[in-house]
């Protein structure tokens, strides 16, 4: 077991070269298992309540696929750019990794901006709020929890990038970047389900 955390060229995957890194990697996967149940419960609640509009606006009246399409593209692309970042991490190229993670953050921020616009649009133009019906509560809770995860992920990434900007890559911080990337993919996958279950099913039914 080495006591320093400097990178040597023969290390293939700096994220999993240390015990600490392996623990974090596995721990995050288990955590995402729990997160899956969390979102599954929110989805189930949403499916049970999505037609309970209590006379308020329904999903067909509210949703517009153009906006959701742009949001989906932004978030899916951000997942791709984080893959590029991890690719550069494995090649020990810190500058390119930071660059691609920076692009990931910007795309995530774009997604978040559109989501905030979407929510304000519903509230101001349709008076569709968290309190207006069970459908409203379920919609804002499910999509809002996802949005909250995006906010958390962006804060996490920003903290990592600022903290390590001048230090370069090491065996100590590589696992942190890597766990973030996996978390970010998870958020992306959840969005794919939201896109399908909330928006697509909401448009057709």
């Amino acid at each position: 077991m080495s006591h320093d955390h400097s990178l040597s060229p023969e290390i293939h995957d700096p994220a999993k070269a240390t015990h600490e890194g392996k623990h974090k990697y596995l721990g995050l996967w288990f955590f995402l298992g729990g997160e899956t149940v969390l979102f599954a419960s929110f989805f189930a609640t949403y499916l049970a309540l999505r037609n309970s509009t209590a006379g308020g606006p329904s999903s067909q009246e509210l949703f517009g696929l153009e906006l959701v399409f742009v949001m989906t593209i932004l978030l899916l692309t951000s997942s791709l750019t984080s893959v590029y970042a991890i690719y550069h991490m494995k090649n020990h190229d810190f500058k390119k990794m930071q660059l691609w993670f920076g692009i990931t953050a910007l795309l995530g921020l774009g997604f978040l901006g559109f989501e905030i616009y979407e929510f304000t649009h519903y509230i101001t133009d349709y008076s569709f709020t968290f309190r207006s019906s069970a459908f409203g509560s379920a919609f804002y809770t499910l999509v809002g929890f996802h949005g909250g995860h995006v906010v958390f992920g962006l804060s996490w990434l920003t903290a990592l990038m600022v903290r390590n900007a001048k230090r370069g890559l090491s065996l100590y911080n590589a696992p942190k970047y890597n766990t973030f990337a996996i978390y970010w993919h998870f958020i992306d996958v959840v969005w794919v389900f939201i896109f399908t279950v909330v928006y697509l099913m909401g448009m057709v039914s």
Partner: protein
Amino acid sequence: MSIASTQKKGFGAILWDYLTTVDHKKIGNMYLAAGAFFFLLGGIEALIIRIQLIKPENDFISAGLYNEMITMHGTTMIFFAAMPMLLGFMNGVMPLQIGARDVAFPFLNSLGFWLFLLGGILMNLSWFFGGAPDAGWTGYAPLSTSSPGHGLDYYVMGLQLSGAGTLMGGINFLVTIVTMRGPGMTYMRMPLFTWTTFVASILILFAFPALTVGLFLLQFDRMFGSAFFDVALGGNSVIWQHLFWIFGHPEVYILILPAFGIFSEIIPTFSKKRLFGYSSMVFATFLIAFLGFMVWAHHMFTVGLGPVANSIFAVGTMAIAVPTGIKIFNWLATMWGGSIKINSAMLWALGFIPSFTIGGMTGVMLGASTADFQYHDTYFVIAHFHYVIVGGVVFGILAGLHYWWPKFFGKVLNETMGKIAFWLFFIGFHLTFFIQHFLGLMGMPRRYWVFLENQGLDTGNLISTIGAFFMAAGSIVFIINIIYTTAKGEKAANDPWGTGRTLEWAISSPAPEYNFKQLPLVRGLDPYWIEKMDGNTKMTPAEPLDDIHMPNGSILPVVISIGFFIASFGFIYQVDNKSWLIVLFAGMVIAIGSMLIRSLKDDHGHHIHKEDLEKEAD
């Protein structure tokens, strides 16, 4: 930090040591102590319930207070007494059993403990701030959404905090068992307690988020005006029941599986025989866990899910009796032909087998969905789940305390007092709960404040209350035993039972900070027993003596937990006055700020040096 510094410290230093510790053994001891405290609280609440029911139309406490008592008794016992004490065993024993020096995430371990403790304290503070939660431990909506005052808000925030802590514990144990098993410790050589820790952690991981979501919905309905359970706005209160029981049913296996693990350690040790049917025990554990996720709706037979759903869940429920039966017969077969030594730990294990079997049998009865319409919400249900939870989990905890006390605290509990406590508690337990089967069958509903006289319920309730006092007496003897042993007990040897089989008995009692000076080589199931049979007195080391890497202690887990604790008050009282939002944000700033410090500050841990280790005696 040298090893010698752990001796002779002032009170302040000891307190600081426990506040900042990331040592799994100290965290385990704190879990046990905190769990025992809440166990006594829940026990007092139980006595108050039984005093109220000692005679017909009693007016010992008011109806409202009675509702608070039953709610707090159930919630405290499940979340703040039984589970923490089992987590205490998992922390204290599991890393030793797999030959590890620590858990995978020591910091997270500490954070999990403090979140649980502050969650428990938060919920109990409701007694002093306008009344405790009163909607039953199950908190069914719309009773829970319409309950006045802040009791239910304390319920939501308290459970949310401690639930987050438990989830961290579960993930930590899973990663520890997967990645940190010592040299030669393959999966199928792991002791049964480690296996049950592993499986219970899987259950924690996949069950708790459902409760988290349920609590969020309840919190949003109560505090922010959402309409999940508000029928007028299209809400549906049955959603709460589903989410609660999707968590709640696995929860009973989170409780009972580690207790099964404890018995699976004790019975072979005191029968001087290897566990009968080890592989089938592991398989049965997984099967129980798997089926445990499939049967939540048997708590909801009378809701009206329809005959098809009821039938499926009834069959699933009854199927759980099969792997559980496998376990019961394996324990019996382990004792068959063994040279059995009956001491306090073994007495609890022996008492467990018939008691739990009765509880399992009534479980199958309740699982018959048509018959359940008769039993539902009567004392029959109360009798059933106290037979499995007291007869299974509490007996398991008490057995485990006797068994591992020397390993945790370095002294053997007094046998005479141990046996007195057992008989008082065991007789009291059956006196209290056996009669309740019949009270239930005669139609006495649960959660009722009073009952009328001359309906055939008087004598049964009197007997039940007398039994409760026997259990209280048993608990008091147990506490005296702890005090006596701490003051007068003699120092325990590494293997005080002489027949220890697993790795924890190969090291000193209590275990040193680093657990194993050199990681031991595991050559099979029951590794220490194998060495003994080969005439060795200790384990063969698998590595040369070298510096040991240890994690640094940190006060941050306490600060993070206090931050969330403060924020909870903000959540609870912002309903009355929006200026409480300041408290909410202040708490969040403390919590998230401390998390940020933890993230940004490098912490590489420290080393215990080879030279210091050489000075230590074995």
